[in-house]
């Protein structure tokens, strides 16, 4: 039986790697997750026959049933806009599970090989931090916990807690199996506290990078506990996720123009001394009938959606409008900034939900050179990502951030609820440009009007 289990684990690990590979392309991505799922199912079922499992079969199955059912129902129900926090929640559960595995092994206080014990303690630390940190990330994105919590000397306090946790961990490792259970308990509590303290000062906009980081950490913890249990499938899957997640975190941070160290240790908008330049000119209004005519007789229209569009649930109407334009022979493209939505790729998911095919969706590098030859740009629910101040004004808080060069297009239409500066409070120079017209209204209502006007043309 042991051989069968080992072979199954081997196939499982292979399917994970293959699945992850296929998830790297939109064409094969769906197949990738199914394959990885088959690997997981096989590995789970065969584990019931594992030689180290002597009892608790019923309780084990009940735990799988409860955990699985809760996750299944919540995962099916969650809205696509809330996806980031669900990932955080599930990731936290994984980190907690890895930490709990370490807790069981350590609480037994049997003599362990020093390397095994070291990895058990390290996995416990990393898993616990990922657990409590992910839960805070979830609470923040879900709106349960609002704002960022900052106080003087915060980074030093965090460092102190971290050093204390490490010291206790080291003491446990060095004492062999002579450590007190109290020491072990305090070690876990401190690690929990550290995960919370590390995450509370980070703002909601940076949360995706943090979730991705905790995802990588959970992977690492799982890999380490895999070594403790002598389970190669856990070792391979865990470390693959650990390194893939680390790279993904870097890519995301890069796409958002935020170095990881900045995300973890400082605030958004800290840079930029002096007054930001005042925008000159005035905002010029336009109505939806004129916009419909403009787009209907254009050759190329680029739509720049932002999170505001998703909040207004306008993506379905926007896609309907796009189809009408396509029928008239207009080339329509969607331009997505990496930070549109709440994490890189999130807006693509939201558009895909509305039925927009992924091959008319372009990212920043692909579309930016096309703006000078674009007749109409429709900005809907986006703001900072089209602000030319990021290119021109060194005093602007967003200076240096890569933006979509919408202002280079012949005409720019900005759909906006009101005249304020919006989420980040940064003045958008694009709104005052000569080639820009403002179309005021709720995203969905505006899209609805445009669809109606296009029908009548």
């Amino acid at each position, binding site marked *: 039986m042991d051989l069968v289990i080992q072979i199954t684990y081997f196939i499982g690990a292979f399917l994970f790697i293959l699945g992850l590979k296929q998830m790297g392309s939109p064409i094969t991505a769906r197949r990738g997750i199914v394959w990885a799922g088959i690997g997981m199912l096989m590995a789970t079922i065969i*584990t019931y026959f594992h030689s180290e499992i002597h009892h608790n079969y019923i309780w084990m199955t009940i735990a799988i049933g409860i*955990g699985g059912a809760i996750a299944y129902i919540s995962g099916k129900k969650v809205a696509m806009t809330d*996806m980031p926090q669900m990932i955080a929640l599930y990731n936290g559960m994984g980190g907690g599970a890895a930490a709990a595995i370490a807790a069981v092994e350590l609480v037994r206080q049997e003599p362990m090989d020093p390397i095994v014990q070291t990895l058990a303690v390290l996995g416990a630390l990393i898993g616990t931090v990922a657990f409590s940190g992910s839960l805070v990330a979830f609470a923040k994105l879900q709106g349960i916990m609002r704002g960022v919590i900052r106080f003087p000397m915060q980074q030093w306090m965090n460092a102190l807690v971290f050093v204390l946790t490490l010291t206790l961990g080291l003491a446990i490792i060095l004492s062999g199996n002579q450590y007190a259970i109290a020491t072990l308990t305090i070690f876990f509590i401190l690690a929990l506290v550290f995960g919370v303290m590390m995450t509370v000062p980070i703002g909601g906009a940076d949360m995706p990078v943090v979730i991705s980081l905790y995802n990588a950490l959970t992977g690492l913890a799982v890999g380490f506990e895999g*070594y403790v249990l002598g389970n190669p499938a856990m070792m391979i899957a865990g470390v693959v996720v650990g390194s893939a997640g680390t790279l993904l975190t870097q890519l995301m941070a890069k796409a958002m123009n935020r170095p990881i160290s900045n995300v973890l240790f400082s605030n958004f908008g800290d840079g930029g001394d002096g007054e930001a330049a005042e925008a000159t000119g005035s905002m010029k209004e336009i109505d939806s009938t004129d916009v419909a005519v403009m787009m209907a007789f254009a050759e190329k229209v680029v739509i720049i959606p932002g999170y505001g569009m998703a909040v207004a649930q306008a993506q379905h109407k926007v896609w309907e409008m796009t189809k009408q334009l396509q029928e008239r022979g207009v080339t329509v493209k969607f331009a997505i900034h990496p930070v549109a939505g709440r994490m890189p790729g999130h807006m693509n998911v939201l558009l895909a939900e509305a039925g927009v095919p992924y091959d008319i969706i372009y990212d920043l590098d692909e579309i930016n050179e096309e703006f000078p030859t674009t007749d109409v740009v429709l900005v809907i629910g986006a703001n900072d990502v089209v602000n030319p101040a990021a290119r021109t004004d060194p005093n602007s808080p967003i200076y240096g951030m890569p933006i979509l060069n919408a202002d280079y297009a012949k005409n720019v239409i900005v759909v906006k609820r009101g005249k304020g500066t919006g989420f980040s409070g940064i003045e958008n120079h694009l709104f005052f440009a000569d080639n820009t017209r403002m179309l005021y209204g709720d995203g969905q209502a505006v899209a609805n009007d445009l669809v109606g006007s296009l029908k009548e043309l």
Partner: protein
Amino acid sequence: MEGFVALYIFMLAAVTGYELISKVPVILHTPLMSGSNFIHGIVLVGAMVVMGHAEGATETIIGFIAVLLAAGNAVGGYVVTERMLEMFKPSEKNLESSKKKGGH
């Protein structure tokens, strides 16, 4: 397990993970994060083993929590990833050409 064999496994797995992600378009970042989140749900296997040889109430309770959390990670990770990826479809007329391009 032999210490050095483990080290080789860790190294090769790390390189594999890095290579797999290095050329992924931005549009797939969110599903991919979710997908890798699912894959570390394999922790379920370890949680089951630990619970299966837990002695006494403390170990059994912690083991129970481990299995419950791990199952949530695996099932939830799968459900949301599958839901997201299910929606990625090319436009009909471009189906052929996008197949040839092998990306985007």
